[in-house]
């Protein structure tokens, strides 16, 4: 399924991406010439349009797709990094999962042997996986697309590797996400739901790989649900009244735009009520879990510069603005 999809993607978007089948990665056909540092991301397939849809000028230089929901091999990351590194080196944008960390880490060690400067930005926004007991830390989810966009625009201004790594860590630290689902995705191996939920139940704090949430709740009215989720995100982020935020209302693969706009309304009302300035909102499927029936909310605390970079043009298969 994955190789065919990759070939199809490369064919459809041949004006924007180049598919290196031997190396196992796709890269931007026309990246911004002002960029001094190449940006490489990647991860398991099944979350489309992430990351492939964000290859291109203004966002990612290369993407290494793994198999379905599995980390890419270190060789793919190594080859992609060598292909797109600039004079200033290469930046790895990694979602916080053990396999991705290890494979990107091995590639970074190999790049060091080749004399290529490499740094990493780790995205770990998922509030539901925050735990004092686990060393694994929060999962990387919806915030990835916001960090890819803002960091990509910053890279296009010619920032160096250390500056970008510092900015990326700060941006990732300013994001939190939370996801809910009323039905699991279809597991391709079995053709059945990855987990069962009864009528009227909601998985609260679900992951993007079919990993179950810590709790299952009975489904509250939408406004109440969005209010709860927003409050949890704001408690963790702690923005001051009057501060600006960028929001992502993200479908997990099995919900309609119509429903997502309803979520966006409830979110905007809640943020208004808290005296926050909702500068920009993205609505749609950006970081999916195959066909999971659910959505996630991501909030990013944003200053003027962040909003400017968010608004900067990007020319990729899936960036909507």
């Amino acid at each position, binding site marked *: 399924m994955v190789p065919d999809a990759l070939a199809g993607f490369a064919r459809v978007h041949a004006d924007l991406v180049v598919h290196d089948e031997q190396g196992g990665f796709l890269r931007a056909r026309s990246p911004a010439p002002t960029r001094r540092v190449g940006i490489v991301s990647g991860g398991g397939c099944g979350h489309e349009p992430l990351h492939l849809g964000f290859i291109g000028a203004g966002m990612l230089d290369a993407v290494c797709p793994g198999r379905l929901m599995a980390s890419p091999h270190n060789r793919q990351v190594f080859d992609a990094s060598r292909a797109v590194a600039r004079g200033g080196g290469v930046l790895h944008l990694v979602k916080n999962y053990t396999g991705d960390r*290890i494979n990107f880490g091995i590639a970074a060690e190999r790049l060091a042997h080749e004399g290529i400067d490499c740094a990493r930005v780790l995205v770990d926004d998922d509030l539901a996986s925050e735990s004092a007991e686990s060393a694994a830390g929060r999962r990387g989810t919806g915030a990835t697309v916001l960090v890819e966009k803002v960091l990509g625009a910053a890279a296009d201004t010619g920032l160096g590797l250390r500056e970008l790594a510092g900015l990326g860590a700060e941006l990732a630290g300013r994001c939190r996400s939370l996801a809910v689902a009323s039905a699991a995705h279809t597991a391709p191996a079995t053709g059945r739901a990855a987990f069962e939920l009864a009528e009227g139940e909601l998985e609260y704090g679900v992951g993007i790989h079919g990993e179950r949430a810590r709790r299952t709740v009975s489904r509250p009215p939408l406004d109440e649900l969005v209010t709860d989720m927003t409050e949890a995100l704001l408690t963790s982020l702690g923005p001051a009244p009057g501060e600006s935020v960028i929001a992502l209302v993200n479908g997990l693969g099995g919900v309609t735009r119509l429903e997502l706009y309803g979520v966006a309304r409830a979110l905007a009302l809640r943020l208004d009520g808290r005296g926050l300035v909702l500068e920009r909102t993205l609505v749609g499927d950006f970081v999916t879990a195959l066909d999971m029936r659910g959505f996630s909310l991501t909030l990013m605390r944003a200053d003027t510069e962040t909003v400017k970079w968010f608004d900067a043009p990007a020319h990729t298969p899936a960036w909507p603005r």
Partner: protein
Amino acid sequence: MLDHYTPEDDTTHTGAAFTEGWMRRFAASARATEAQLTALDQQVGDGDFGTNLRAGLDATVTALDTEAVTVASTAGRAARAGGPLQTAATAFLDGVGGTSGPLFGLLLEELAVAAAGPALDLTALRAGLTGGLAAIQRVGEARPGDKTLVDALYPACEALRVCPAEAGGRTALAHASRAAWEGVRCTARLRARRGRASYVGTRATGVPDPGAVGIGLLLSSAGGVVAELAPLLAEPEPAGPS
């Protein structure tokens, strides 16, 4: 097990021919113990470590055979003790799946870089193993005591640190190997905090970490092929009154 070391061994050159032989013996050890490694890994992991290790070493042997027929590369290899180690490193890093296999690649790569001179001497071995440990810890974030391959590699590095300066490469490897197997036996008493074995909790107690066993195999293979894990995993008899 490796106490058969005699001082004359150290006068033998530890150049590219030695490191190539070492990697070929490591491959033979992995083939001979694959089933035993798989049995261990099925108790604490997902059971693929023996297969992955063997795949990496089979690819290494194939690459070494290919290089051997190329005259130009043979001349290049003779000048650098690390050449065959680099061949093994690339085979592991590029071709092996899972996580432990590529981590072996990192260690071999650090050894290869350290062995840039004509012989793998104590200094190169120390730099390579210590550099490999550091790289593996940077990537895998494991500490000594987490029941991973670090628990074999760390004591091996310590043994090299206190190894007398006049020791040659072979003596140093024998010291490192002995310390690594002591570390392997310790992992059987540990509860895993990292890696696959951490998911099975106390059920992994009593079973040594397969990755650590792999480090023991690597170092022992410098002296000879290992066909049986049992004697190396058995706790030594307490010394009687003398």
